[in-house]
């Protein structure tokens, strides 16, 4: 899967100042230089803006952006139900 959720792109570039060129589906929090505080903040932003709970340790820490996208898509369906 090659799509990245638009919210991920928006937050990584806007808030965390990650260069857009680095935001590729296989990128991870580590490869994007997102430390544990940054990942925890990202989880709060997902919860606040999408209504999706995303535990920073279990879900975001080691996942690729493609995997996070898949989770957000699936969870958003759940939130909408």
């Amino acid at each position: 899967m090659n799509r990245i959720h638009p919210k991920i792109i928006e937050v990584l570039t806007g808030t965390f100042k990650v260069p857009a060129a680095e935001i590729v589906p296989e990128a991870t929090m580590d490869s994007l230089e997102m430390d544990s505080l940054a990942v925890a903040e990202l989880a709060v932003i997902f919860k606040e803006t999408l209504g999706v709970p995303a535990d920073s340790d279990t879900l975001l820490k080691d996942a690729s952006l493609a995997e996070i996208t898949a989770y957000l898509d699936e969870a958003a369906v759940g939130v909408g139900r």
Partner: protein
Amino acid sequence: MTGLGVVTPVGADERTFWAGLCAGRSAARHRPELAGMPVDFACAVEGPAPEPGAAPGPDPRPAGGPYDGAPAWAGLDVDAAVGGRSVWRMARFVKLALIAARQAVADAGLDPSAWEAGRVGVVLGVGVGGVAALCDNTLRLRDRGPEAVSPLLVPMMIPNAAAGEVAIALRAQGPSLAPATACASGATAISLARDLLIGGECDIVVAGGTESVLTPLVMAAFARMGALSARTGDPARASRPFAPDRDGFVLGEGAAMVVLEREPDARARGRAPRALLSGVGASTDAYHPTAPEPHGRVAQAAVEAALRQAGWSPYDVGHVNAHGTSTPLNDAMEAALIERVFPHRPPVTAAKGVLGHTLAAAGAIEAVATVLTLERGVVPPIANLDASAVEFDLDCVTKEPRRERVETAISHSFGFGGHNVALVFRKA
């Protein structure tokens, strides 16, 4: 003192700052984010013009002065100036300090990648800290529960965050401190830096102050205590140090940082100091949480301690950079102190007329201004002051910058809590 850095409401580089200070016009204006507050104006570090190429606003500086030809202040894109990926985790007071610290280190001709990190200290005075993040998260907790609270709240709001981030950015691994003496914090920081150098704990200290609290909560609080000028109809004329009709201070934001080294060390690396910090003195009123001891007798002890450390008599002081907040109580106390200690009437200025009161940054910004006066032989005017109206026996510089060669100067800083600090400088 080998390097200077400033981020102020009239300029975020030394040249523009000095031009704005010498122009003698207040930076105060109405702020949309303060609408509805009892006092809705302040002196902010403006952002850049909203559109590329758009006019940044009229340049208030008349032609012909020593400031003539300096670029107009076009605002500062704070996040762009900080740069890198760490901006998101910094509160605004931290960002302003970091920008000023980098300026000061570059001005000193130092390269942080090459210095012996363990011998470099950071002393960064902060009065309040990240109050905007605290307010925002208080509302999140109330409205949406604990899961909405940012994990960044604590590292963003703690006052020592500025010292910590500056140390990271500069790779400074010696002692670091975040003194909180309210409006004297920046001066306290410079004083402590001197101790670290004399005590041999550091070879280089990056020191100063920062503050950014132009939020509705803080404005409401200062207004409620009666500290702020209520001249809401005419913000640009509200900050008027030593004027008989002064009615309070105008809140400002900013930062200033300086690099201090022992003079022989600086000269050994081929660097002439920009000025010499000849002495420091401090005292505490132990009188009232906010009001100064009316006669300034304890503040005078701080001034006398600084002179003693420098080995000077009061008559050796050629210029006074006053605390001059524009509050009725401070200015009366300080004027009485200056009249008493310096009967030879050295020229007096007060930067808060132009910049507003930048709280913890003020002492550091005014230290930079004092050094520039020594270097350039120019004393900036006090904004909004008519010399004929001055009720005190002071030689206040008004209207125009005054060309006057001064060899020595003192800068006063006084803070809520009763903190008094005096720094004395000699031309290098």
